[in-house]
């Protein structure tokens, strides 16, 4: 089936560039990893929907009613909200259906289509960074936050890749000052492990998507801490030092300089409203359900394979595969002493063997 044909009446009419009628004149800034992200052209209802969905990620200026200026020293990634007629979308029976977006990739753009969603990510030759545009028929209401979040998930994944990081299908759990990423696709047991970890007193970042970045990538990554810290400073070299220093103070061994960044993209567990600073990476754990708990070291090749399988959206893009492999190889190398297959039972005893490592 050709690109967009599952969702659009006329996929051949997909917008060739980021242009159209804005929904309104509202704008706000989201401070998420890789950001800030400046959302432009919102209607009042859409503005309220984004604020209600991502309250912990609103830039302090935007939250106080200012113009939503981006983080100092970091150029904001623009996201345009544009109108699209509801009649442009095909009716889709979603019963018993696993939702996945349609993608089309080229060197300078990514096109995506989904339920109530037509989107573009563009890299323009005369401007640094990327730009996003979302065409939707949803003016606020129940469906708009989901449409916007689906677009934002893709945008953040591409932005982090650009900056030397990755968004990973994982349950992110913080215990003893270190973040552990339990890796696996749908059905692997991410939510189960997160729930068992909660019962052991750990914090769950998200049971669905978490971001990770390796030190030395030379990037500035939005801290995602604007509301919490009162500063929206990017997390650059100084931040990396901070993370390394934090690792020194914990009882848990951590990977050299790798940090996990909380995303407000959760499944059943994880507080999307909460913000927190980067947490040093304690380990990568590939999930495997079993009768008894055990840790089996992963080779670098196995770690890379696992990471590749768990990087949504970007891992099927033929134009960015070299970049993705570079980033994940660096992460696999940094995480090597702390990368395992976790065979876990439902008894929740796996934390005792993780601690022993």
């Amino acid at each position, binding site marked *: 089936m050709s690109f967009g044909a599952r969702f659009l009446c006329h996929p051949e009419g997909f917008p060739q560039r980021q242009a159209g009628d804005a929904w309104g004149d509202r704008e706000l800034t989201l401070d998420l990893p890789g950001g800030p992200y400046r959302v432009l052209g919102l209607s009042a209802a859409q503005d309220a929907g984004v604020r209600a969905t991502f309250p912990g990620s609103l830039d302090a200026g935007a939250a106080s009613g200012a113009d939503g200026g981006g983080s100092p020293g970091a150029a904001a990634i623009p996201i345009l909200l544009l109108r699209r007629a509801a009649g442009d979308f095909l009716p889709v029976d979603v019963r018993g259906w696993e939702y996945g977006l349609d993608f089309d990739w080229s060197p300078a753009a990514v096109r995506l289509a989904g339920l109530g969603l037509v989107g573009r990510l563009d890299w323009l030759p005369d401007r640094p960074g990327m730009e996003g545009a979302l065409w939707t028929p949803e003016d606020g209401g129940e469906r708009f936050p989901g449409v916007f979040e689906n677009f934002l998930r893709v945008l953040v994944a591409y932005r982090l890749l650009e900056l030397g990081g990755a968004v990973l299908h994982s349950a992110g759990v913080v215990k003893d000052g270190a973040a552990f990423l339990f890796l696996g696709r749908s059905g692997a047991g991410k939510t189960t492990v997160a729930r068992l970890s909660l019962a052991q007193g750990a914090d769950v970042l998200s049971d669905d998507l978490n971001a990770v970045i390796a030190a030395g990538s030379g990037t500035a990554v939005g801290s995602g801490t604007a509301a919490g810290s009162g500063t929206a400073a990017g997390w650059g070299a100084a931040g990396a030092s901070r993370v390394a220093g934090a690792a020194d103070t914990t009882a848990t061994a951590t990977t050299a300089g790798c940090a996990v960044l909380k995303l407000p993209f959760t499944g059943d567990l994880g507080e999307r409203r909460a913000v927190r600073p980067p947490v040093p990476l304690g380990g990568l754990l590939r999930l495997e359900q079993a009768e008894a708990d055990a840790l089996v070291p992963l080779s670098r*090749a196995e770690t*890379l394979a696992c990471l590749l399988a768990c990087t949504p959206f970007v891992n099927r893009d033929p134009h960015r595969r070299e970049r993705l492999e570079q980033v994940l190889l660096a992460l696999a190398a940094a995480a090597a002493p702390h990368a395992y297959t976790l065979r876990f039972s439902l008894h929740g005893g796996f934390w005792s063997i993780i601690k022993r490592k």
Partner: protein
Amino acid sequence: MNDIGGGSVLRRRPDVRFRVIDEEGVVVRQSAGEVLVLNDLGTRILAMADGLTPLARWIDSLLGEFDVERAQLERDVVAFAEELVAQGLLEPLPAAAAGAPGSGGGGR
């Protein structure tokens, strides 16, 4: 079933990415988002699937590395090659195209 034998020439499909790390092969079938890790023998075989070298030459090469009878090795290699073809990782080249300039593998 593909008719694969000693004269067959195979190559990695264009959407297959292949990288060797510490003697293990990481194979990505990009169009499906699938990732595999191959052991050293599987890695050697995938590396030889360059769109130029006939399968019989793979066996010549491997015979020097493994203590096994040629007939047994040939059966194993053919079976493995068929499996990789079935999984969409390798594709046989038509006889006329085999060895032609530019018929090398699509991955690394």
